[in-house]
């Protein structure tokens, strides 16, 4: 199956009575950044660990670069670059020593594959003798990425690489991923932050061990388009309580500076402007978080 970097068929995994993954199927193509979006506890890390051969699925099967994750796990361990969710470098080794160690773990020399990491590593170069434990969050993350790339993997697994990192470093990190993608290397990345969906070629929304939606961001937004009003009040808490009493309002919830309101089909937005304390009412397109909530809500009911 050429062009298919990851192929997951109906994978399930339970820990005791907790179903971590419940019939997951998805495909990742060569040369794409594929984002797995979902909250903590949705099953993202479990799926990553199954794909990186660290866990065995209870049922279903998966291949990575054509290798079966159970039978051909040694081939996957050679082919994959993996950055686990937690900070996973040696804090007492320097930047340089960490990179050298991870290179030699795969039997390569840093100098042989330096081109793989040069653009990222050059940012770290001024600190190469610094201990990894003393780096800032953003730098640790870049070093961890270098360590995952140094053996020239055929596919990259990044489990929540941007968790706990500030907005500037996050944005830089995504720029780097976009750059790596140009080499054709598929990148499978997970994140709990919905706003990172726009940086992925395709995404899957995951919650409670199930895939809710799959596609490009635009496809998903388009498929789930619905009338949505954004309301801003003098005091959003008062306005929120007032909105929930209005006939025709299905749900109202806070979303940043605004309150997002889903209404019945024939609802007249002007009705809301008349409520005391409401300053602004506008029609907006739902963002990925709104969609997630809508689909999650459907799943619950």
């Amino acid at each position, binding site marked *: 199956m050429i062009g298919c970097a990851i192929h997951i068929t109906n994978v399930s995994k339970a820990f005791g009575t907790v179903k971590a993954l419940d019939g997951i199927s998805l495909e990742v193509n060569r040369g794409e950044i594929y984002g797995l979006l*979902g*909250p*903590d*506890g*949705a099953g993202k890390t479990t799926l990553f660990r199954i794909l990186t051969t660290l866990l065995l699925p209870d049922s279903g099967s998966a291949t990575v670069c054509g290798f079966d994750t159970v039978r051909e796990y040694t081939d996957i361990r050679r082919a994959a670059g993996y950055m686990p969710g937690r900070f996973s470098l040696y804090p007492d080794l320097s930047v340089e020593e960490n990179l050298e160690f991870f290179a030699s773990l795969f039997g390569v020399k840093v100098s042989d594959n330096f081109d793989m990491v040069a653009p990222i590593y050059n940012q770290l170069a001024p*600190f190469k003798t610094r201990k990894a434990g003393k780096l*800032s*969050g*953003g*730098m640790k993350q870049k070093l961890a990425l270098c360590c995952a790339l140094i053996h020239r993997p055929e596919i990259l697994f990044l489990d929540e690489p941007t*968790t*706990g*990192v*500030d*907005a*500037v*470093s996050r*944005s830089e990190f995504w720029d780097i991923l976009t750059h790596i993608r140009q080499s054709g290397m598929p990148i499978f990345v997970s994140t*709990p*932050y*919905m*706003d990172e969906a726009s940086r992925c070629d395709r995404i899957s929304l995951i*919650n409670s061990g199930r895939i809710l939606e799959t596609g490009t961001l635009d496809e998903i937004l388009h498929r789930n388009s619905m009338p949505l009003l954004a309301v801003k009040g003098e*005091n*959003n*808490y*008062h306005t*929120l309580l007032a909105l929930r009493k209005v006939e025709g309002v299905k749900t109202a*919830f*806070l*979303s*940043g*500076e605004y309150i997002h309101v889903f209404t019945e089909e024939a609802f007249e937005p002007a009705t809301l402007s008349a409520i005391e304390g409401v300053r602004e009412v506008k029609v907006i397109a739902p963002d990925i*978080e709104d969609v*997630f*909530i809508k689909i*999650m*809500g459907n799943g619950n009911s």
Partner: protein
Amino acid sequence: MATADVIAANRLTKRFGDFTAVDAITFNVARGEIFGFLGANGAGKSTAMRMLCGLSTPTSGSGTVAGYDIATQSELVKRHIGYMSQKFSLYGQLTVRQNIALFAGIYGLKSKEIKERCQALAESLDFTKEMDMPVAILPLGQQQKLSFSVATIHNPDIVFLDEPTGGVDPITRRQFWEMIYKKAEEGTTVFVTTHYMDEAEYCGRVSIMVDGRIQALGTPSELKQEYHARNMDEVFRRLARKAQRQ
């Protein structure tokens, strides 16, 4: 209206050796306000917050929290604040009820009050059978809501939230912010540190720290307008990129 300010920081400074972690920051937070305290890693947020909680003495400058001086009356400050962080967790082995009773007891509530609060919390969190379940087996989102309730069980003047909603699902997150709004409505000041900018959009006012100084302060709309940005993320990136510190 200086007396209405729950937090007043005046040229608050903290130096470690030659390194100035927090450099003469001045700001006020009013009663019932939701104040976002943003900054990149290492910008000085945590140091500043530690001073405001009375855990660390300022090198120079002064500040009051809930009307008490943070340098000389830190014990009183601690009694009038609440604190919650994503990392700070409740005791997983204890049940919800035991956790509530424990923290209420720490804050000196009487056993009759504790019983009442338990009842009230069970209702507001919509917990029924959960009350006697160990906290560890609750979903993460519920743990965080409980954690917030426990941090405010003694009705503090101000509650400090350190990256409160990282990683929770969007529905829980919005419910969580609704709880925060409700608490603020009841008069508790909410002080939130985060580096997730979508969280900043929920705040009444936000400050952005860069290299130990407050570089911007205003409502999210004001800041977006001032920096011609679509969202807080852009505002933040524009400011934080100028950082010199590594």
